[in-house]
């Protein structure tokens, strides 16, 4: 019998989850823009609703186009499966609420994307779910913050915008020693640069809006699970072994084994919350993923060159990018992100807050907006936008200063990106100097 082929990463960006359409033979994944799917008969309907067989019912729960995106992401991350969501924020909410509820506790890195910080610190807190934020780089602080109500450890592989690289193996060791899953937001890396599951992560999240889609067209998110965490042995997750009233008393672990977490997430959290990905967006994200490897190679090479140019410029006071040799995260980046530490980094302008604003207002090519991971180069000033709702203390804890400018380096000609930064720096320095 022929041996199973272990397909390469680029092959899977094009083919995983995307068999030719069985009905029409369509080679590209078709857009199944349909809310609902007819049942064969009443028995079929009953079987589907009771999870006794797999199939499509209603696109809030699953959809053939979305399923192609889900399987592709599961394959690329080396996970057992995936659930697509309306956004990266939705992925966080659904993953966390599958594991934790009122009275429970999360230990999270402090230097998270501002939107994640407010979700955990404000909305989830209001629902009775408490988060302790600890220094991204202090593994012992993660361990010390765990209590008997803790349900998960949460970090970003590359902090946004701090650029802190998480020590995934050390965090996974702390998590597993305490019977906890490690949940990693890998948005900045994409599975091309780092697959956290290979370093012990149990659940990986993405804002697919960013480099996965890659063209700034579609909001989406995804949750991937390794399928290796033992929800029963942990002792912290009785819901996986207790009868589920809404599904005839079945038990997630007994009936679905290693598929328990994702099945529960889809069949309960996604069903109830409704934060599903649209089939059209799933299609757009799939188109992006098909060139993920090629785009990321170009993003990374442009980012390295732009960062080196900025670091050598007298008008720039600092550049924080784990790829630079003087970064405190350079060693961790070498271990976890050997192809490159992504294409998003921050820098500070001499002249502080005012110079930063003038710089942004004088850019001609680089776009000022609240996103990263577009094919185009993007810029933002966190202190006046994404992080404005945080206190100064919270901003410092997250490593965000008032002069910080965040750059998401795109795929334009390198010379054009540098030309634009150069002329805007000149304008900003003139203001600061005058």
């Amino acid at each position, binding site marked *: 019998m022929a041996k199973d082929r272990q397909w390469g990463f680029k092959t899977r960006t094009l083919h995983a989850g995307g068999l030719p359409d069985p009905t029409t033979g369509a080679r590209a994944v078709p857009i199944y823009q349909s809310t609902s799917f007819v049942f064969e008969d009443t028995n079929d309907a009953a079987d589907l609703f009771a999870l006794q067989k797999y199939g499509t019912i209603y696109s809030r729960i699953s959809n053939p186009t979305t399923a192609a995106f889900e399987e592709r992401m599961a394959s690329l991350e080396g996970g057992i499966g995936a659930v697509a969501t309306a956004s990266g924020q939705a992925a966080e909410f659904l993953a966390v609420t599958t594991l934790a509820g009122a009275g429970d506790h999360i230990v999270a890195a402090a230097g998270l994307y501002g939107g994640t910080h407010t979700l955990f610190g404000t909305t989830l807190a209001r629902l009775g779910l408490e988060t302790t934020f600890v220094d991204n780089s202090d593994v012992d602080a993660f361990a010390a913050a765990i209590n008997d109500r803790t349900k998960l450890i949460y970090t970003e592989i590359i902090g946004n915008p701090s650029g802190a690289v998480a020590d995934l193996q050390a965090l996974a060791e702390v998590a597993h020693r305490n019977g906890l899953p490690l949940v990693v937001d890998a948005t900045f890396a994409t599975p091309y640069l780092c697959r956290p599951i290979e370093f012990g992560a149990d659940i990986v999240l993405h804002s697919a809006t960013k480099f996965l889609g890659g063209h700034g067209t579609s909001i989406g998110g995804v949750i991937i699970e390794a399928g290796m965490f033992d929800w029963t042995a942990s002792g912290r997750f009785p819901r996986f072994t207790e009868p589920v009233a809404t599904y005839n008393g079945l038990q997630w672990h007994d009936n679905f084994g*290693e598929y328990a977490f994702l099945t529960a997430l889809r069949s309960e959290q996604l069903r109830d919350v409704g934060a599903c990905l649209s089939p059209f967006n799933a299609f757009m994200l799939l188109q992006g993923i098909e060139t993920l490897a090629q785009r990321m190679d170009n993003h990374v090479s442009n980012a390295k060159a732009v960062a080196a140019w900025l670091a050598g410029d007298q008008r720039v006071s600092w550049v924080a990018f784990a790829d630079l040799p003087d970064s405190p995260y350079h060693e961790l980046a070498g271990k976890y992100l050997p192809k490159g530490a992504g294409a998003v980094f921050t820098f500070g302008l001499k002249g502080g807050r005012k110079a930063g604003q003038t710089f942004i207002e004088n850019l001609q090519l680089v776009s000022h907006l609240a996103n990263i991971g577009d094919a185009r180069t993007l810029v933002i000033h966190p202190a006046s936008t994404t992080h404005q709702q945080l206190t100064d203390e919270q901003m410092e804890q997250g490593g965000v200063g008032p002069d910080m400018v965040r750059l998401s380096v795109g795929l334009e000609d390198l010379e054009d990106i540098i030309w634009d930064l150069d002329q805007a720096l000149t304008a900003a320095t003139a203001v600061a100097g005058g």
Partner: protein
Amino acid sequence: MSTTGEVAAPSGWVPPGALERKHILDNTRSIAIVGASSNPARASNFVLTYLRSSVCDFDLYPVNPRETEIMGVKVYPSLADLPVVPDLVSVFRRGEDTPDIAREAIAAGAKTLWLQLGIANDETAAIATAAGLNVVMNRCVKIEHARFAGGLHLAGFDTGVIHSRRR
């Protein structure tokens, strides 16, 4: 839960890869389900509901001396009582009970012995392998069928299936 550790056991048994599992299921018509239960909360019952649904086309022979009928399907007290030679014997019993079931499956003429999720036994594998049976352990016949029939794909799981032809 280490259901995917594809390493050879001391018995010399090598877990069948995905293509081999597909080949086994493609060549299976009749399935005996040892340890089938009428309790809807039990995994064996749940798997039976899938195997008798419209996405499958199997002849099913539940085996359990304490049951007579499950969801309208006649139950047999033992493998020796089956009216047919089962292609595949799917087992929902504790690991230590499975060597005897392997011997019964051999006597019944089965081609494949399949121990369900969470069930594995080196002695069982050695007995069945020596008699020329295909042996699958610690896998779910429902999940593996769904992997190749498209159900697993629709639920967002990685099937590992890549192919350029229409099926």
